[in-house]
């Protein structure tokens, strides 16, 4: 069943038991909206030098957008900024692959749980759901940087 390729066990797990949900102190906050469906997220980042000390978030959305925020939290917190950016780029590439990209071992190593989203990339309407939190994180990070909170 094709649907299972989108709703991987890992995704449903993250959806039902989200990591790091809730808003906590941060250096910068952004609010992103997906006008196509109305999904919304408020996201804060906190940096400790170059290290991501926390990504906290709150929002409403479908299983894909919720799970994606949870995976993001799990993957990025504790990482150095440069590494996190690499992960973000890899995730973006995967999501824009229209189902054409078969994640290999190297990719799995970078993306960990996030490779489960490969199936979502076949559904253009849902790609935005998966990317919502990642775009918010990128934006919040840029904001934190420009406000000179890191490094």
């Amino acid at each position, binding site marked *: *069943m094709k*649907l299972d390729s*989108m709703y991987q066990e890992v995704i449903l797990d993250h959806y039902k038991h989200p990591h790091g949900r809730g808003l906590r102190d941060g250096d910068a906050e952004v609010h992103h909206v997906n006008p196509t*469906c*109305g999904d919304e997220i408020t996201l804060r980042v906190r940096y400790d030098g170059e290290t991501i000390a926390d990504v906290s978030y709150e929002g409403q959305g*479908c*299983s894909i957008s*919720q799970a994606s925020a949870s995976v993001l939290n799990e993957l990025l917190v504790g990482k150095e900024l440069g590494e996190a950016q690499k992960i973000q780029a890899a995730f973006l590439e995967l999501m824009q692959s229209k189902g054409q990209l078969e994640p290999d071992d190297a990719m799995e190593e970078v993306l960990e749980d996030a490779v489960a989203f490969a199936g979502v990339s076949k559904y253009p309407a849902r790609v935005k*759901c998966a990317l919502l939190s990642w775009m918010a994180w990128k934006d919040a990070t840029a904001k934190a940087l420009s406000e000179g909170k890191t490094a």
Partner: protein
Amino acid sequence: MTQLPGLLDTEAIRKDFPLLDRTVHDGKKIVYLDSAATSQKPRQVLDALNEYYERHNANVHRGVYTIAEEATALYEGARDKVAAFINAPSRNEVIFTKNASESLNLVANMLGWADEPYRVDHETEIVTTEMEHHSNIVPWQLLSQRTGAKLKWFGITDDGRLDLSNINEIITEKTKIVSFTLVSNIMGTINPVEQIVRRAQEVGALVCIDASQAAPHMVLDVQALQADFVAFTGHKMVGPTGIGVLWGRQELLEDLPPFLGGGEMIETVSMHSSTYAPAPHKFEAGTPPIAQAVGLGAAVDYLSAIGMENIHRHEQAITAYAVKRLLEVPDLRIIGPATAEDRGATISFTLGDIHPHDVGQVLDEEGIAVRVGHHCARPVCLRYGIPATTRASFYLYSTPAEVDALVDGLNHVRNFFG
């Protein structure tokens, strides 16, 4: 097979709609429950489009040659058909636009640029409702921003009806225009036109009715409505995309200024100044959607042949059945009227905590096409404190079996995320 009184012969009707034969996901026949977003098109409408392009295509109004006269006759003939369909006193009151949104923006802009007594300015008020499609909110917000007029609105009750309890405070002597939807595109609510129109007339305000969700489904009689403007859109009433209608009272159309300028809408042009053609042409700048008007004419013929009363009766039967069956699904909550009274064949609901996106996705896998999200009516979602809804909407080709398929699908959704 479920048999309900009042149903149309959907077996025959469905043969007219090629898309309904479509299969998705390895051979699953499509169950199209998104007619409130756009309807499917019968063969008869597609034939009219092809016939126009293959035999009569020419620009209208200015040609003396044969096919230009034919094209003009077809285009203006479509106007006659639409005028008859809505019982307009005069064909000249029917303006072709590109969609209902343009029709509504046209009204807002005419009033913004009008002279007294119509002019909307910072001393006046505009009234709409919380139940509107964004296309009947944003034009008035823009008008309000640009003129300084105050925008006011009716709220919604818990069961999805307009709250008219404060009608005399909302519609006042300052009100210039009251614009509201006849049928809600998200909840299916049919609104009490008469009460609103009576109050508007009392204070001398104009009334604009958004009939986008009414024209496809019930008898639309602009004279009985007693409105000043009525807007609707072709693609929801088995017509092509790219065509909308604004009906307006003749004397208003004469008095009000044009909106878009260009070819076709003028009388004479010099570099220094121009004069305008009489309505409806005054409001139709540029080459109109000719083929699309012809297609809408064919759509109106198609609907009339079946009969709008019959279509309405069919939808009422389906709606009553759908409401009953949906309420059997555990955790399903209908947003809007939860009975079949005074409502159209559009039903929004939530399903426990499962996000509508996920509902829609799993249903799609079964071939069932429903819409999920805000349905361009975000204030309604805000009002009920929900992120979005799942919406099933029915039309003249919908069957009880499709209602059953939806209910089965929803139970499957529950198991999937259970």
